[in-house]
């Protein structure tokens, strides 16, 4: 296992390096941030001043080497717009996104697993058909539409929930969390539900499919014949076997949810990193875009690693770093 993790980390470093190359040169091809910061009255001298100020007067490859050099010492550059280190901005806003993503994950699993099991146990019941129909909606209806409808209904018409921002937060271990206050929860509910919809639909479908398959497996019949209680069969034997695909897919989804919760965050003005990325792209804040994407790659690598480790826990047949390769 240690060997596996080490090999994975080396691969990841390579991925990171290639990624910085692509991202750095990619963002340098698009547009020119100078004209975002120059007022309409800015003349050529003033434009040149801004270019020099932002360090854009040097050739791209030179800028890249400066960037890599700084990155190796942990400095991913200063945001053009905020004027503060890009990483500090990301760290400042990441907890909000993480909280939102975890809340969405909890909703997806908390609702998705029972509903999926229900639908899998009695596939022909009306309730099951209803569940499956709703899960299709979760896949096919665009997130922004759901978000806006939720706002229309629950905040504008009914006035139950606030529509924007993050509520009161409390600090735990230095991280700001809002789910521990009532105000925070009321702010969290709609965006988390909106963000969870896609994952929720996926969990329902995967669970149902898994149930349908596993329930007919020999070991379930054998367990039943042995007189093991139905609850135990479901919660231990069946569950363990259907969780593998769910963990795989959610693992991949979850990274995406953290990295690109853009739409949900924009609609609910959630002060997370996704919204920050969109704002940064709109004003071509190159250091912030690059820093964020590098960070995202790093995060994906870690998540994939964790998913692999989780496999081996769930399914003893999976051996990390098996000698055959």
């Amino acid at each position, binding site marked *: 296992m240690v060997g596996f993790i080490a090999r994975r980390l080396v691969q990841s470093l390579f991925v990171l390096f290639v990624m910085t190359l692509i991202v750095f040169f990619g963002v340098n091809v*698009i*547009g*020119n*941030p*100078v*004209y*975002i*910061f*120059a*007022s*309409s*009255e*800015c*003349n*050529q*001298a*003033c434009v*040149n*001043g*801004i270019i020099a*100020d932002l360090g854009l*007067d040097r050739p791209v490859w030179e800028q890249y080497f400066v960037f890599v050099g700084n990155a190796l010492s942990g400095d991913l550059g200063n*945001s053009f*717009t*905020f*004027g*503060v280190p890009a990483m500090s*901005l990301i760290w*400042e*806003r990441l907890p*909000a996104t993480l909280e939102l993503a975890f809340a969405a994950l909890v909703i997806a699993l908390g609702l998705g697993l029972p509903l999926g099991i229900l639908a899998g146990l009695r596939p022909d019941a009306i309730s099951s058909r209803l569940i499956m129909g709703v899960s299709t909606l979760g896949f096919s209806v665009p997130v922004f539409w759901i978000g*806006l409808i939720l*706002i*229309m209904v629950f*905040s*504008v018409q009914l*006035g139950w929930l*606030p*529509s*924007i*921002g*993050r509520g009161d937060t409390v600090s735990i271990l230095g991280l700001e969390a809002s789910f521990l206050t009532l105000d925070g929860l009321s702010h969290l509910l709609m965006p988390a539900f909106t963000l969870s919809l896609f994952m929720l639909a996926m969990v329902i479908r995967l669970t149902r499919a898994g149930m349908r398959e596993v329930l007919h497996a020999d070991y379930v019949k054998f367990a039943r014949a042995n007189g093991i209680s139905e609850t135990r069969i479901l919660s231990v034997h069946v569950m363990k076997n259907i969780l593998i695909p769910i963990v795989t897919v959610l693992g991949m989804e979850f990274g995406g949810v953290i990295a690109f919760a853009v739409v949900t965050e*924009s*609609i*609910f*003005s959630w*002060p*997370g990193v996704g*919204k*920050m990325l*969109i*704002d940064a*792209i*709109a*004003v*071509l804040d190159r250091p912030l875009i690059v820093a964020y994407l590098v960070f995202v790659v790093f995060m994906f690598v870690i998540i994939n690693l964790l998913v692999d480790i989780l496999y081996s826990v769930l399914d003893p047949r999976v051996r990390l770093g098996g000698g055959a390769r």
Partner: protein
Amino acid sequence: MKRLAALVVAAAMLSSASVAAQEVLTIGVRSEASSLDPHWTQLSADLQVQEHIFEKLVNLDSASQPIPGLAVSWEAIDDTTWEFKLREGVTWHDGEPFTADDVIFSFDRLRGGIEGAPASPAFTLDKGGKTWEKVDDLTVRVRTDGPYPTVAEDLAMVPIVAEHVARGVTASVDFNSGDAAIGTGPFLYNEFRSGDRISVVKNPGWWGGEVQWDEVVFRPVTQDASRLAALLNGDVDMIDYPPTADLPSLRDNPDFTVSSIPSDRLIYVMPAYRDVEDYVLDNDGNVMQPNPLRDWRVRKALSLAINREAIRDRIMGGASLPTRNVVPPGFFGYDESLEADPYDPEAAQALLAEAGYGDGFQLTLHGPNDRYINDARIVEAIAQMWTRIGVKTAVDTMPRNIFFSDLIRGHEDSFPGHDVPKFSMSLTGWGTVAGEATYTVSGILETYNAATGGGNGNFGRYSNPRIDARSILAKRTIDRDERLRLLQEAINIGMEDYALIPLHFQVNHWAMRRGLEHAARTNERTLAIEVRRVD
């Protein structure tokens, strides 16, 4: 500083417990302020928040005309020297007195050369070759390298920071944390949470008098629909840029009030004047020579073919003021004899035929799709209107971060230090921030000259010596009446020649809950001291 702010809040809370509830104004804004360092950028989202904390020597009234700010008076003591008398008894938020040293420090900080200074050249401080000196604690002189009439207007762009706190701090960072965000303005720094909120609290000792709000909170809500929803359900008290499609229903709703004013932002279509334009083709798809856009009759035909009223009513929800001026009503240089062109497609076709283009030609109209109110839809509408008179117009809109760099220097002949614009016809805008037309005329009508800064917004590369003579002279004319005459002449020459095709001034709107009254300002900024409770 944070402690001081906290103290003020605590004091305010104590008094509120016994007297009245806290007066909090929450404003939902479209764009987030990224920095509280007033010398960091010139983005209006930043400036409008900074204006609550920091002040300038010269303020702008709601029609953007200069009025006393931290300076009580100013005059030109000769052609090249301006003397500013500073306000007595003004203190910084930490209690230190405000003096001429702070003014000199702020100017120096903008020019750069001070450690930790942003060296932001985006401010108009270097225009006219300004130098500055302190005469005594309450007097500052600004010298220019020639007669330069708009010193006061320029200084209305320059916020003053406190020398004793801003010297040696890190630009932007230390301001966002509040350590250096110490100004003289009506509000004190309270909280800056990126992406979530910026909050300022009342400055009880403000020289300008009693401030009505105990706390003002700015919350960024980028999405139009969400911002409106936040207003409707009471999360915020007021929003800027309500979606234009919802203006009629907001006006009809007794629970809300809408304020509006024509902004200083002219939206216009800019033809390009090079001999050969890449996006001007004949009906067979060949590049045309000569470029038909160089014929004023063609430009006039294109202007007559635009139905500005339809754009106002159908696209802008009534939020535009069709025009043929370059600055809005109330601004120095506005000419009321210039009326927006009527919609007259027959006359347009006749003019095209007279110019020899009766069969029409092909054109691409470029424009941004996220910069001006309804920009992409306006571009599409104009393209259809032009196509109707025989000028088959294709549409190409793009995000502003790509549009503006292409507009300014997107042509393949560009190289560093030499900008060649790309588009042949583009929709763009020009904001007259200083409340007067001198630099608008110079920026969009004067011949492009990288060295003098003339025509720095003239990306069509229009050139007319009759305008140049007047514009250049106006920039050096101190006498207001004479300058006004020169500017209006230049504007009239440009408009008769259809140097550019003006569409409208955006009319900016704010929507707020019932019981609030807002004196809207032309320069698009939302200032809490201009919002009053009336219930």
